């Protein structure tokens, strides 16, 4: 598998997208049955 190099800002942004909001309470308008 080919490894890819990511810059600091890109990695920080990707991490924020991946994990940001993970502990937030569910939006009552967007509950998932």
């Amino acid at each position, binding site marked *: 598998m080919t490894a890819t190099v990511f810059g600091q800002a890109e*990695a920080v942004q990707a991490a924020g997208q*991946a994990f940001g909001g993970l502990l937030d309470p569910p939006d009552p308008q967007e509950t998932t049955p």
Partner: protein
Amino acid sequence: MTSNHSAPTPDVLADRLARLGQGAGVADRQAVLPDRLRMFHQRLLGAFLTETAPPDGPVVAGLAAERAALAAADLVHPDPATGTIAVAYPFSGRPTPYRVKLAGGPAVFAMCAVDALGIPQMLGRDGRISSLDPTSGQPITVEVHAGAWGFLPATTVVLSAGPLLAMPVTRPPSGAVPTSTSTPTRSRPTRTSELIPT
């Protein structure tokens, strides 16, 4: 809108996960969970911030179906030998080369570099990541304070074995979620990114 807290059938959850595709991240996979399972997932994540050892006992006891569903979603994986939580992305229940000291405590371990970078952002807190160059053993430090990030060495980059957000879905355990979907499988959690000084 009224919240429905009843659990979906396993095939419904499997379909939701399959529709996400390979590029789905942890937040994407959590978002398709039913509310009750999402809250259980959040409890497990929160336990890493309050306990000195990986969550076990009262946190996960008697919740085999829920644990199986979270494993099928590639969100949480137990240690097969002990039953404790070995992985709850971004946290690792075992020591790794990615130690994250949160401002005000505690210190936790992350599964990989991107997971380590995600922990302070998930919590909205300052923190310090300590790692080592896997080749030379050179210390690497990443600090975040009030949203400003600093890498030492300053030339540090992230080396990833794939797209930064791609986390293939594991094969669901027998009886948890049907395996009729064509989602890629991963036999066990692995590190996918590293900090590398250049």
